[in-house]
């Protein structure tokens, strides 16, 4: 007997259709799965068999052949457990099914017949929604993802429950599920989440007010946050670089709906799905350790998964102790930093991940950490310094919009706490600058202004042009350095509430670019 059910898998971070064909023929009992199934899918045989028997159904006697189409798509997900099990029950005649194509099913099975959550449920659900299926059945564990994907998705806890729903057909099932709370609500109220998220980031226990002194660094951070510019902080150990970076979350603008969905999809695929709805609008903040390898950073694996740069999509990638990173690892950031997307090729297929991240780096000025320090002497040799600086190559440095040197805070500043800006002040400035930019008619962050739009948004006056020409020649800037400096100046002007970029704005922007 033959049956066909419908499911989906993730290819990278995109959902793809998969049809599960099941045929039971005479022969020695066993399940054979074909259709480029990975080990994870092959192992489902044992789970399915136990789950079916422990759910009170009879396991069919005979040779079961399962075919996963399209045959050319590599499948690596335990989410096919449930559709295969349903397919087997349908083939056997255990459950009465109409044409199964109107239903999409995903879910992993436990041996006792429970349905477990799967990674990547969100993109799969969105994909199935697009296909206009009559019903989508997902694990109860993935309810938060299901709510993001919209209303009318069924959540189930066991194979038996799923089979029963499946038999009923869409009309009856909706009534039945409604009664038992198995249907998800419609889309979340964004305003509500936004208020929640705002409260959450503001009360995360990390406030810029904790940082005494360092007002120039805080100023730089405001500019970086308002325009999403990259930032490199250089300073002696303990001067507050990591503290500053760790508080970025409290002043970054919340994400909009599109960004939230993109980020939620990436979280879902990487298994970092967070149950709390509140975090949905907060920008991700990733802090990989400096021992991270290239695959961990930019993504990889034989079934490619997102790396840290993709997890930091729409958020911040903080690379602390940047000079301790492997050089090749840092260099691998070159193209993703420009392209804002990374493509991996595996077995003849391309996997693209978005990686529109804001990079924040922190480093010591030298290996011993005290070069240029007021009180302590640097013990590094020239060779040490050279080796250390080679870690940050020209191409990488050139791609970072802002660089600041930080000094240790003086004792007087330290004791006179709370004098400086706190997160609330800074957040207000950032928001005001962004609103100003929006009022100018610009829809993207200043760092993301396309090259073709530079003349439109960052027009310089005659005097400013002369000023920049002198700077360009005097500092040997590259065209990229030039355009990035102008974008930073645009952000500074926005913070100032000024339509035009003035010389003072350019000078401050240049100051962040030109460091020894």
């Amino acid at each position: 007997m033959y049956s066909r059910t419908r499911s989906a898998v993730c290819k990278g971070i995109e959902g793809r259709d998969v049809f599960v064909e099941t045929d039971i023929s005479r022969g020695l009992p066993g399940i054979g799965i074909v259709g480029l199934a990975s080990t994870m899918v092959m192992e489902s045989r044992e789970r399915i068999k136990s789950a079916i028997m422990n759910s009170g159904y009879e396991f069919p006697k005979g040779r079961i052949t399962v075919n996963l189409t399209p045959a050319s798509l590599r499948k690596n997900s335990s989410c096919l457990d449930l559709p295969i099990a349903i397919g087997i029950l349908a083939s056997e005649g255990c459950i009465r099914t109409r044409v199964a194509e109107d239903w999409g099913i995903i879910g992993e099975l436990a041996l006792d017949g429970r349905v477990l959550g799967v990674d990547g449920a969100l993109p799969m659900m969105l994909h199935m929604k697009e296909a206009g299926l009559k019903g989508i059945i997902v694990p109860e564990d993935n309810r938060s993802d299901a709510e993001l994907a919209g209303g009318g998705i069924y959540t189930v806890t066991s194979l038996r429950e799923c089979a029963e729903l499946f038999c009923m057909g869409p009309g009856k099932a909706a009534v039945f599920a409604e009664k038992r709370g198995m249907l998800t609500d419609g889309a979340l109220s964004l305003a509500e989440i936004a208020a929640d998220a705002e409260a959450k980031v503001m009360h995360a226990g990390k406030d810029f007010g904790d940082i005494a002194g360092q007002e120039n660094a805080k100023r730089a951070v405001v500019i970086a946050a308002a325009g999403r510019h990259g930032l490199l902080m250089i300073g002696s150990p303990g001067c507050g670089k990591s503290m500053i970076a760790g508080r970025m979350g409290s002043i970054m603008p919340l994400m909009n709906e599109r960004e939230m969905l993109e980020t939620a999809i990436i979280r879902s695929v990487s298994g970092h799905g967070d149950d709390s709805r509140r975090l949905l609008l907060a920008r991700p903040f990733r802090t990989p350790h400096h021992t991270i390898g290239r695959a961990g950073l930019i993504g990889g694996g034989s079934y490619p998964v997102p790396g840290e740069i993709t997890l930091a999509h729409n958020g911040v990638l903080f690379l602390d102790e940047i000079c301790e990173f492997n050089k090749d690892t840092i260099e691998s950031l070159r193209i993703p930093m420009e392209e804002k997307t990374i493509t991996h090729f595996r077995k003849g297929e391309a996997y693209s991940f978005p990686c529109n991240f804001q990079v924040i780096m922190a480093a010591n000025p030298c290996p011993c950490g005290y070069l240029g320090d007021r009180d302590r002497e640097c013990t590094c040799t020239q060779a040490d310094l050279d080796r250390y600086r080679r870690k940050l190559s020209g191409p990488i440095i050139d791609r970072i919009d802002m660089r600041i040197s930080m000094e240790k805070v003086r004792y007087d500043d330290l004791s006179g706490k709370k004098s400086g800006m706190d997160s609330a002040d800074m957040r207000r400035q950032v928001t005001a600058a962004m609103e100003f930019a929006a009022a100018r008619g610009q829809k993207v962050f200043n760092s993301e202004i396309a090259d073709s739009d530079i003349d439109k948004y960052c027009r310089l006056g005659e005097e400013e042009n002369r000023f920049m020409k002198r700077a360009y020649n005097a500092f040997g800037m590259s065209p990229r350095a030039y355009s990035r400096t102008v974008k930073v100046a645009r952000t500074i002007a926005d913070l100032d509430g000024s339509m035009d970029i003035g010389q003072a704005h350019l000078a401050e922007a240049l100051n962040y670019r030109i460091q020894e």
Partner: protein
Amino acid sequence: MRYKKNIGDTGEDLAVMVLENNGYRILERNFGTKVGELDIIAMKGGVIHFVEVKTRNGSICGYPSEAVTPAKQRHIRKAAEYYLQGCRIPWSSISLDVFEIMTDHIENCM
């Protein structure tokens, strides 16, 4: 152990009976080779059937036929090849079969 052996032998006797009743001619029983043993070799309509008999009491261990593992299948195939090399009877094709016998001995139930 004795009990289990008896179940197996009884099962094979039963299988022979059923096969004979269905028009099979039994060629060999318990044909032992150094690569494996064939329970029953029978013939019907020019086809030589190599029959593996599996007897199970109750279904708690799964279906009897599931006990014919890939390794066991390999042994049977080898043994069948061995038999065919010395076989004088003309045959058109061969068939590797499993004969399942399920008994239901429920102890202490009344």
